[in-house]
Each structure stands twice: as structure tokens, then as C-alpha cells.
């Protein structure tokens, strides 16, 4: 299969040579899972409008992407368009002069500052990638189980724990499917899922970066205190439960609530045989503003050394259009368009997730921008601390203090 594609790609490059009027653009990407979607849906749609520009999607394996891309860029053999990882990996490429500044691209106006923040210089003066998609955090629940137990969807913290208590008292289901063996779920689907409601999303995140707030402030310790309460609602032996274990517990219908990221949607749709619903992280009191983690994940930029920069800009401008957004979001439910124009999606679960953008404030994971540049790495430490807090081996305050001390050891604004 891959071989055929490779031959097809080779042949197409050869054929493209003589046709001088035509420009060929090559896209570097790690999303090799999406090859058919690009070839069958996205590229034909673009070429229908721009028959003079030919586009080739040439992905490499996800784990090798950063290394392969770096060496190709240094050697000058990289494609015209570069798929961008969020934050420091891409910023480094921009600082080295490998990615072009795209701040003046017309369709950049279609994106909010938060959407663009993952691919901007620290001062926000230059944006170097067009945002494509984000993933949203929340909780997916077993709707059949909720119905059988007569539970309504919780919106406040009290209702959330009341629901968990009711599920636990009934005993048919494990209240919540999560383990601490792999650690990252505790931080990503735990701390950074419920946290934004406490630190007020962007407000707290930016204050932390500026050094105006500390990780030992109440707003940053409170999510740990919540995680500490989760322990009683997790399954037997959750300490050794892995990420795939949690996924299976939920899709087999043995657990009622799953702290989730929207990327689970397509997998869960295929596995689960019950009705599913989703709710955003609960707020303290009814009517409070809710905040969600709407984490910017994937974007696309222009190779500064590309000889086809004009054609590439045409393509990038199209990637920033609502038309592309609709196509992409429907082909990959759970990867949500970052475009400000609302996108119509077919999948009900994906619709539910994306509807929160209308009523809640969006933010990204607190540890991703700037704060994970030093040693110790704040993101990795947060994995460890969140898992410790859930297991009960470290008190919320102690965990926060440790994180703060680590951050302050290298990050000047926090000193």
C-alpha cells in the first residue's frame, strides 16, 4: 500500500516536471493516518479551485517527524509546507529561520488570539503557522447508565460529586474510569481538564507566565484538592490501571464517567455499544462562567526556503478558510477547527464538545507555553504531581509547592 503510494508520488513528481505552468507544493506532516483524507477529500477540493497548483501530501511517521523534518530543513530538501507542532518545537524552527512569518496572511483574521498563541513568538508579534485544529477536554459519560440510575448531567461541582456518590452507592458501575499508571491522564485529563475553572482560563494562565500568580496560589492548588477527592471514585487497583485499561473499562460499559479529550470520539464511537454524552468540567456554583481546555494541537506553516512561496500562500490562505475547516473537522471528529466561523459537524458527540466554545471561555493547557522550557520540566513534573495527588501519596499543597520551587529555579518571572 505504502509502496504503491510512494510510486504514485514519484511518478506524479516526474509528470509534474514538464508542465511548467503548474506549481507543485509538498506538505510535510506527521499525520500519516490522514493520508487518504488529504488525497481523497482535501486536495481535490483545493485543486478544483486552483487547477494550476498541484499539492502532494508527504507524511512521515509521528515519532520520527521532528527529527526527519529538522534534518530535511537543514539540508534544504524539506517540502514547501510544514505541519507545525504547537509551541516550542515550531518556535525553534521559526527562530532558526526555517519558517516564514505569516502574520500578514489574509485568513489569519479568522482565528482568535488563543488559537494563534501556539504558533506565535512570545511577544505575539509574529505568527508563523495557520492553526488547523484543537482538542477539547471534558467528561464523556455513559448515557444509558445515567438514565438507568436516574441521574442528570452535572453542571456544578456539588452535582458532580453527588452523581459520583450515587453511582458508587448503586455499585453497578465504576464511577470514574482513570488510572495513574501512565501518569499523563492525571495531568492532562485531570489537572488541566478541571483546572481552568479555578484559575479562570487565560487570565490565570497568562498571570502565571508573567509571574503575577504562583502555582501555590489557591486557584492553582484547588484543582489538586479536587483530584485528591477522585481517588474514592476510581476502580479497584487504579494505581496500576493504564490508559488503554481506562478506555476499555469505559467502552465495555463497566465505568460511568470518563475524563476525556475529544480525540477519543472516533475510537469510542467504534467501540462503545451504548449511548454516550459529554459534559464540560463542572463549575463551583450554578451560573458561574465556565472555562474549558481547548488545546491547540496542529497547524501548518511555510518553509522559508520554498521557491513556491506565492502558491504556498494561496494554499495556506485556503487552509484558513471556513470551507477547509468544515471539511477537516468532519473527516476527523474530535479534532476541532480553530476557525472563528462556526463549523457544522455531523457527529453528535463532537457537536456537544464544540458547543462549549459558545458558552465557555477557551484556554489551553497551562504548562505548554513557555513554562516547560527549563529543567525541571513543568509538564513532566505536573504528570508526576497529579498522579501522586490522586494516589494520595502527596498532599495537594505539597505538590503545588514542589512544582513552584521547580519552576522558580529556572524561570525568572517566578523568582
Amino acid at each position: 500500500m505504502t509502496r504503491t503510494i510512494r510510486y504514485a508520488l514519484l511518478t506524479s513528481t516526474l509528470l509534474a516536471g514538464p508542465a511548467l505552468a503548474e506549481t507543485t507544493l509538498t506538505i510535510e506532516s506527521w499525520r500519516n493516518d490522514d493520508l487518504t483524507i488529504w488525497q481523497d477529500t482535501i486536495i481535490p477540493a483545493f485543486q478544483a479551485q486552483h487547477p494550476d497548483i498541484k499539492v502532494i501530501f508527504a507524511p512521515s511517521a509521528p515519532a520520527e517527524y521532528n527529527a526527519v523534518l529538522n534534518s530535511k530543513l537543514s539540508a534544504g530538501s524539506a517540502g514547501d509546507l510544514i505541519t507545525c507542532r504547537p509551541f516550542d518545537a515550531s518556535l525553534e524552527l521559526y527562530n532558526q529561520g526555517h519558517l516564514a512569518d505569516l502574520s500578514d496572511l489574509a485568513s489569519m483574521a479568522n482565528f482568535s488570539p488563543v488559537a494563534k498563541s501556539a504558533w506565535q513568538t512570545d511577544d505575539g508579534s509574529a505568527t508563523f503557522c495557520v492553526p488547523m485544529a484543537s482538542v477539547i477536554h471534558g467528561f464523556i459519560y455513559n448515557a444509558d447508565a445515567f438514565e438507568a440510575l436516574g441521574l442528570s448531567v452535572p453542571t456544578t461541582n456539588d452535582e458532580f460529586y453527588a452523581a459520583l456518590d450515587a453511582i458508587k452507592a448503586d455499585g453497578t458501575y465504576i464511577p470514574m474510569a482513570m488510572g495513574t499508571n501512565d501518569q499523563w491522564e492525571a495531568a492532562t485529563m485531570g489537572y488541566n481538564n478541571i483546572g481552568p475553572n479555578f484559575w479562570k482560563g487565560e487570565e490565570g494562565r497568562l498571570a502565571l507566565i508573567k509571574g503575577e500568580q504562583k502555582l501555590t496560589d489557591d486557584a492553582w492548588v484547588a484543582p489538586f484538592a479536587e483530584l485528591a477527592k477522585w481517588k474514592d471514585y476510581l476502580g479497584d487497583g487504579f494505581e496500576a490501571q493504564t490508559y488503554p485499561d481506562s478506555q476499555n473499562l469505559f467502552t465495555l460499559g463497566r465505568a460511568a464517567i470518563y475524563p476525556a479529550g475529544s480525540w477519543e470520539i472516533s475510537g469510542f464511537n467504534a467501540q462503545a455499544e451504548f449511548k454516550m454524552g459529554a459534559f464540560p468540567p463542572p463549575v463551583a456554583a450554578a451560573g458561574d462562567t465556565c472555562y474549558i481546555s481547548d488545546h491547540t494541537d496542529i497547524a501548518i506553516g511555510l518553509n522559508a526556503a520554498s521557491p513556491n512561496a506565492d502558491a504556498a500562500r494561496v494554499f495556506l490562505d485556503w487552509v484558513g478558510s471556513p470551507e477547509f475547516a468544515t471539511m477537516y473537522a468532519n473527516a476527523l471528529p474530535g479534532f476541532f477547527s480553530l476557525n472563528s466561523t462556526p463549523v457544522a459537524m455531523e457527529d453528535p458527540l463532537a457537536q456537544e464538545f464544540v458547543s462549549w466554545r459558545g458558552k465557555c471561555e477557551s484556554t489551553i493547557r497551562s504548562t505548554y507555553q513557555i513554562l516547560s522550557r527549563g529543567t525541571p520540566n513543568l509538564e513532566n513534573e505536573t504528570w508526576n504531581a497529579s498522579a501522586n495527588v490522586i494516589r494520595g501519596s502527596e498532599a495537594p499543597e505539597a505538590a503545588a509547592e514542589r512544582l513552584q520551587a521547580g519552576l522558580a529555579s529556572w524561570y525568572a518571572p517566578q523568582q
Partner: protein
Amino acid sequence: MASRKPVRWHIGVFLAPAVLVYTALMIIPLFGTLLQSLFNKGAAGERVFVGLQNFATLFGNALWSDAFWNALGNNAWFFVVHMLVQNPIGIALAAILSTPRLRMAAFYRTAIFIPTILSFVIVGFVWKLILSPIWGIAPGMLDAVGLKSLFAPWLGREEYALTTLALVSVWQFVGIPMMLIYAALLSIPDEVLEAAEMDGITGASQFWKIKLPLILPSIGIISILTFVGNFNAFDLIYVAQGALAGPDYSTDILGTFLYRTFFGFQLQLGDPYMGSAIAGSMFGIILIGVCVYLFGIQTRLRRYQF
């Protein structure tokens, strides 16, 4: 007139492939790593010579030294478990297997040796499944004998995780000491054993008084192999617990600490200079251990020539 000694060029020719390959793949990278540990990144990202500053950071800065001593302590415990469990069991198995009256010895020998040839990935995965509190057979088996209360999610508890993994590793590698000792036991001449029997030394006392002293050099070799293998270990921990060696770094050994530092992990970018310093320290620890053995123990062992 004495003819000139002919140049024995064939020695060089036959040694060359091994020397070249070994130099290219082992010696140059080793010295490259040691050299790299003396450098670090300058202000503009260029490589600057910093002398022993990386080692000063590693041992002097609490952020690094705590992690390093934790990893070293865990590594030492990992080694102790192997020495106390793997090697005695290996020797006992070899002694039993070499009993002439044992039936199906070949079958047992093979069965016990098979885990050794399995990949770490398979061993780690299989044991994770066996011990899983959700799907594992361990809780069910304990339940069947009425000992369910003894079950705990061992791999997820700080106090048990490292010992559990060490025992998994023992299970995997017990075949190696068994095979080496078995070979050593078979090489003991029958005359010696017959003479012992004439003197009335049989059974267990024959093992303790005759066989054990004769296989001591083999036990020494096994100990040093275990030492080097354990302080270079990485795969099993990485497969079972990931690069963060959870819970709370309680299974972090030098190998996983090196991996995280050198190659980076998730948002943490790799730091080849500090990584080389850790690799250099590991090399030093193993070198010291091997030297202590070679000069302190090996030379004092009595050898018997038959």
C-alpha cells in the same frame, strides 16, 4: 646466518574485522560520549568546553543529584534482589538438574531457559497483564486459594513496584545462572565425586563441601554479569512503567534517568550534554564495580585444575 622472523601478517588480517567493528561501534562512541560530557551549550547554542561543570551540576545541584541518587539507590536495590533471589535460585536449579536421577531434565532446563530469549517488550507486557487488577489472572488465582486480601496493584504502589519489577526480571533471567552453573557442575570430574563418596560425603553435604567450592569461580562470573546487566538495565522499566518510571520515580533507575535526560520526553527537550554526564557516571560506576571484583575477589579465588 639467522633468517629474519617472517612478518606474521595473518594475525593482523584476522583481527582486523573484529577490531574495526568494535572500535567503530563501541570504543569511538564511548570516548565520544565521555568527551561530550565535558561540553555544554553556550549562550548562542554553540558547543563550549565547560570542563567538569556538568558533573558538578549532576552531583551538586539538588534538582539533579536527588534524581541521580534516587536512581542509583533503586538500581542498587534492583541488583540486590537479583543477587539474593536470581542467583541462589539459579544455583539450586542447576544443582537439581545435574542430579542424575532426575527425569525430564532436558524439558525443565528448556522451560526455565525460554523466558531469557523472550523480548523485554513481551515480558513487560505479559506481566503487566498478569498483574493487572482489572483483567489480570493474579487476583483470580489468589482468590481461588482464598488469599485475595494479599493482592495489591503492585506495579502501581511506590513501596512494591520496584521489587515487583526486579522479580519479573529475575523470572526472565534465572535461566542464565542456571545454565552457567549447570555447565560448571557437569565439568566436575566423576573421580572427585567418587573419592568424596568413598569418604562418606554424599547428598547435600557433597554439594556444600565439594561442588560449591569448585563452582565458586563461575558464581563470581555470574555476579559480575548480573552487576553489569543490572546497572545497564532500562528496557523492562521503560516497557512496564514508561520513561517517567512511576509511581513517583520509585522505579527510576540510571537507564531511564539517562534516557529522559538525553533524548527528552514529551515537552522536555533532550539535553545531550547532561545525558553524556549521566552516561559517563554510569560507565564509572560499572568500571569501579568490575575493578573491585577483578582485583579484589577474582584474584583471591582458588582455582582447581583437573
